[in-house]
């Protein structure tokens, strides 16, 4: 754009210069070429017109160029303001996370020490105390997920949303999540089983944090609502890989399915009860999946006499062929 404006400006300058030259030459050669018109030779008129056109063009391009520069500056400043806003928010959040995490780590540490003492001496264990310790251990993954949700939400809201692709082993990501939630599920008398088909799924190019975050939200939900079993199955086709999180809970009524991924929606909203969670997990999970070029869908059966269950299916591109430089811009920004 700058080059075009500069060319026009130079052209205008040449035209104005030509006009000026004609006006200077007019007294010397004008009367030999044309008859006088209204006491002035026509070469002067011609020179004057060219000078005005040339100067007008130069002035116009100058104004245009300045306006373009200003727009560009505003654009950059607006962007950098937003960028610095999201960075500052993240920094504040990390401070907050650290400060909030510290007392919780102390509580969890003391809880685990006390549990070890009680395990060594079961006769001295008070059921009420055991209950309290179990509750602290149950709430710990909730806290971790909540903090992670807030962090991801800040990143999602950032105007500079770029998805970084790294080689990831989906099996390993799922394994970690199963390891984290298996003890929580066992405490509640439930079981998590996971597997992949084929058993060694291999590498994909994806954002490992995003996969972990999405599936953690799904498994957290599944463990909460399951009757006794949660299953996580990993599969793939030539272009995508899929994670299916299934639970044998009571299922979700058809009338609610369309609201499941709404920001802030929880079953309690309908019943006008106090919310037991923020209702952000599934919203964030689907936003992340779509940002990565995939999707998150749900299939559920709430017939209590039938095979009631809920299954979330996450599909994400494997990026095995279009992996060029490791970075893909957010498709919504393209």
């Amino acid at each position, binding site marked *: 754009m700058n080059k075009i404006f500069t060319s026009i400006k130079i052209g205008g300058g040449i035209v104005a210069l030509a006009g000026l030259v004609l006006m200077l030459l007019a007294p010397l050669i004008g009367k030999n070429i044309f008859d006088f018109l209204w006491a002035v030779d026509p070469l002067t008129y011609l020179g004057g017109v060219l000078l005005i056109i040339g100067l007008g063009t130069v002035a116009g391009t100058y104004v245009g160029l300045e306006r373009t520069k200003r727009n560009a500056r505003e654009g950059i400043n607006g962007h950098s303001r937003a960028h610095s806003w999201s960075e500052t928010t*993240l920094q504040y959040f*990390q401070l907050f*996370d*650290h400060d909030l*995490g510290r007392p*919780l*780590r*102390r509580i*969890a*540490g*003391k809880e*685990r*020490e006390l549990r*070890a003492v009680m395990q060594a001496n079961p006769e001295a264990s008070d059921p009420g105390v055991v209950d309290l310790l179990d509750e602290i*251990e149950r709430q*710990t993954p909730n*806290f*971790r997920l909540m903090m*992670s949700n807030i*962090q991801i939400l800040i*990143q999602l809201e950032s105007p500079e949303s770029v998805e*970084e692709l*790294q*080689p990831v082993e989906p099996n*390993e990501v799922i*394994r*970690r999540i*199963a*390891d*984290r939630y*298996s*003890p929580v599920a066992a405490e509640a008398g439930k*079981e*998590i*089983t*996971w*597997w992949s*088909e*084929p*058993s060694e799924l291999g590498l994909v190019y994806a954002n490992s*944090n995003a996969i*972990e*975050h999405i599936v953690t939200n799904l498994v957290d939900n599944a463990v909460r609502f399951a009757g006794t079993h949660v*299953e996580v*199955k990993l599969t793939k086709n030539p272009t995508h890989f899929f994670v299916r999180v299934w639970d044998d809970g009571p299922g979700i009524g058809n009338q609610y399915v369309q609201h499941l991924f709404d920001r802030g929606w929880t079953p309690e909203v309908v019943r006008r009860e106090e919310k037991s969670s923020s209702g952000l997990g599934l919203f964030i999970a689907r936003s992340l999946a779509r940002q990565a070029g995939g999707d998150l869908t749900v299939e559920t059966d709430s017939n209590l006499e039938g095979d009631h269950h809920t299954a979330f299916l996450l599909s994400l591109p494997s990026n095995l062929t279009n992996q060029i430089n490791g970075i893909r811009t957010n498709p919504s920004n393209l």
Partner: protein
Amino acid sequence: MAKVNSKHKILVVDDESESAILRAVRRRLEEEGWDTPVIQPESGHSVGEEFEAATLWYIEQDLPDAVLLDVRFGEHQDDQFRGLGILGEIVERWPKLPILMFTQYSQGPDRETAVRGSLKWDAQVDFIDKLASPDEVVLRLRRLMGAAPETIPIGNQILVDVTSRLVYVGDHDDQEVVLEIQGMKFEIFRELAVTWYRSPGELVAFGRLERYSEGEDPRASLRVRIREIKDAIGKAMDIRFGPSELIINVRDQGYRLVPPKS
């Protein structure tokens, strides 16, 4: 407690190594049969620098099997991400040494910076949240080190000896060999035990186990062998395992080990 080829040494580098949460983790690592030496530099002006120097010196002198490393050392601004600097130094000098970053920054931009800046994708480095349960830390270290133990205890009563290819049943003081579990049956049980050791919820797909079956219908043959394993162990323990005990068939996809309740 799993017995490994030699006693594994997990170097703990954390300025809060005496905190309750670290003590709980170290106790669990020791239950696993691992030594947990702790880096405790003499206090100086810069906490982070002291830890960095002491850690590198220790590893130089006595190479551990893995390192459990914190990210933040003290409150000084320079030490906020000191652990990432130590991580970079270790990876550069000992690229094969498994490192588990034990931190509240287990996710997010700082982890990404560390991964991009100092690590290749195949580096033996993983991140885990400080609020992770001690069991989770053990599982993650097991996988990072790729340790194949000589023996795998399944609950309190069953022990798989991978080296001598035998299965024992009974208390620590009074164990008897289950002689019926040998050959293919041992391989099936070992496969289930090793998978359970790495990740307790992981199912072993039929395809992986059918390698140890024969005949025209490997699935049916596998089913028979699984029944025989359960019966043999049950007989030694004087109980009969039902369909949802010890080895369970999950939705006709594969089998999973479930330690018997003590």
